């Protein structure tokens, strides 16, 4: 039995190929059904996001199944992948396939290192596979391990720390001045898409009130209505600035529209209370000379990006720690995987039954005369041996490569609790 992975992602394939590979949830379910009916691959997980499409499957013979999967999921649908362009695809087997999935859930394979969203996406993919009846015990356990390591990576390392988008960086900077944004006023100057995005982000942090100023008042009114704010024309900007604590500027103006003189006037009106400018326009809307006014905090694209870069650099330093976590989890999973053979299952069954027998004999020993105790011991041993003899006999005929029989072994392990008490060891390994 093998675990195989065939996939492509933002590093292996260009966008043109990735967007063709991406599948809707309905298409994912259909593909899984096709694999089960036509190729007899009954345990499969198909993960499809904008940056990756990956298929994980438990198969009997990787040599046979790999080409089938490659064809069904990728080459038959995407012409670009034919004719020697196979290098867009990557394939992994067993340990490496497990490791890859764990790296994915930890965010190590993501475009934005350590991002959180991927964990939810893998969970969705798992749910789709489950409702398509393509998940057995092996995949279930694999997915559980993957979620666990993903969560551990984010709680035990700093792979998810720090803002990695401009909007988040803006929030972090504003919070270094105001501590909490709740109840702080925001003025949005310019009604472009980026500004709206940034404003939505600030609204989610509880800013209040929201004012919108724009060259054309109609546009300002539309945006203000959508976001739940108040509209101004650019002429009313000074008055608006005196009322808020954060000014987000995103106009397409060719030069600065907010200068030092204006800001000094505003600061006089607001009794020098701190004012933050988040200038995400290029060219800049706020004249850098504004920095000379006390208690003004002005951030442009460069400073926001330097915050983002810093977070990414710090996250990169966490990669070795996350990889150590992954190594331990991979080792734990592979130990379980290798126990899915008739030999280990029979051995563990004997161990568990013998444990129960010995415990019960010990507990009831006092009810017997001392000369009968030896008989009791012999009798119970024979009973256990006879109970398990038939099972062991049948298990010995299981073939190592057959996924269905592996699946039964896995079910057996679960039913008799053969892995109980082992999970903690896995985590520490």
């Amino acid at each position, binding site marked *: 039995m093998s675990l195989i992975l065939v996939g492509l992602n933002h590093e292996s394939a260009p966008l043109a190929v990735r967007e063709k590979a991406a599948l809707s949830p309905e298409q994912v379910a259909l593909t899984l059904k096709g694999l089960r009916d036509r190729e007899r691959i009954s345990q499969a997980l198909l993960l499809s996001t904008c940056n990756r499409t990956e298929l994980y499957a438990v198969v009997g013979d990787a040599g046979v199944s790999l080409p089938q999967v490659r064809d069904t999921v990728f080459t038959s649908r995407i012409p670009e992948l034919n004719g020697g362009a196979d290098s867009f695809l990557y394939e992994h087997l067993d340990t490496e396939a497990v490791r890859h999935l764990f790296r994915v859930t930890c965010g190590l394979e993501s475009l934005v290192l350590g991002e959180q969203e991927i964990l939810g996406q893998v969970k969705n993919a798992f749910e789709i596979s489950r409702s398509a009846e393509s998940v057995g015990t092996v995949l279930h356990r694999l997915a559980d391990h993957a979620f666990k390591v993903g969560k551990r990576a984010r709680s035990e390392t700093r792979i998810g720390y720090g803002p990695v988008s401009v909007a988040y960086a803006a929030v972090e900077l504003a919070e270094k*001045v*105001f501590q909490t944004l709740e109840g702080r006023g925001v003025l949005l100057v310019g009604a472009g898409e980026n500004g709206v995005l940034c404003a939505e982000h600030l609204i989610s942090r509880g800013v209040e009130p929201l004012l919108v100023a724009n060259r054309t008042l109609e546009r300002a009114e539309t945006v203000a209505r959508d976001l739940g704010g108040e509209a101004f024309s650019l002429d009313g900007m000074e008055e608006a600035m005196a009322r808020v604590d954060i000014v987000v500027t995103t106009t397409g103006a060719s030069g600065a529209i907010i200068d030092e003189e204006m800001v000094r006037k505003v600061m006089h009106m607001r009794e*020098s*209370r701190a004012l933050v400018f988040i200038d995400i326009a290029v060219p800049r809307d706020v004249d850098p000379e504004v920095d000379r006014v*006390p208690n003004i905090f002005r*951030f442009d694209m460069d400073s926001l990006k330097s915050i983002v870069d810093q977070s990414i650099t710090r996250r990169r330093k966490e990669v070795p720690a996350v990889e150590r976590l992954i190594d331990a989890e991979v080792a734990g999973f592979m130990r379980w995987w290798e126990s899915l053979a008739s030999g280990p299952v029979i051995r563990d069954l004997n161990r568990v039954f013998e444990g129960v027998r010995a415990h019960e004999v010990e507990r009831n020993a006092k009810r017997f005369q001392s000369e009968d105790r030896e008989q009791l011991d012999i009798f119970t041993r024979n009973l256990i041996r006879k109970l398990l003899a038939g099972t062991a006999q049948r298990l010995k005929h299981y073939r190592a490569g057959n996924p269905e029989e592996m699946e039964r072994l896995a079910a057996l392990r679960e039913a008799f609790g053969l892995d109980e008490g082992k999970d903690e060891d896995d985590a520490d390994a």
Partner: protein
Amino acid sequence: MINTELFLTILLDLLPVFYAVAFFDYLLVFVTNESTVRRLARPLLITAVLVNLVYLLAYTVYFEHIPMVNIYQVMGAVGFAVAATYLWVETKTGTPHTGPFILFLVLAFQVVNTLFPKLDRDVPDILKSALLSVHVSMAVLGYSAFAVAAVYGLIYLLQYRAIRTKKFGLVFRRFPSLDILDRMNTYAASFGLGFLTVAIITGAIWSTHVYGAVKIDPKVLVAFLTWALYGVALLGRRFTSWRGPRMAFSSVLGFLVVMFSMVAVNLFLTKFHIFVS
């Protein structure tokens, strides 16, 4: 009662050690933010403060007067008050990263206190007056609060500079927001002003009682100056645009005046206010 004196001496010698351990742990927390050192920080400081409290209580009970007879003991008491205030501030702000800067001050005061130990028994009777004890305690608490305010003022100025010049390094990441720093600075300065007011009033009453009139000396003048400076700054913050960096700067400046009062005036300029040579 040699044993009690030995006990007090040992405690006094140990105090800087306890504070030093806490200080270095807080410094490590600031630089690395590692979770184990972070967990240790608060218990270490609480231990130091408790040992300090035991020392102060034992001293007061044994010698029957508060341990504020000479400038060194007063500095020790200031150190204790600052450390205790900091523990409260840490609970309020929820961050240990201002710790090393406050504790450096505490450690310095404790080292001075321990290097010049004086377990005097021949204390002038006037020092055993309850009113004077209140006066001295209030002055110490007031100056301690000003010390805390000054440190937060200084940290405010550092953070203000880091944000304005877009230097997003250790200072930016570890120190709390300007909002918090400003609030801490203002709280501490307000408490300081309150304590100093009580100290001045009790001082005046005591002086009238003992000398028949309010005695004015350079140190009293400096106390009035300090009081006026903080009063104006706090009023300004309340009613005008004297806020943020200006308030922070006032705190730092105010404390420099306090230090001048505590050290220079005490050592060179006055006979009054020094009761034990």
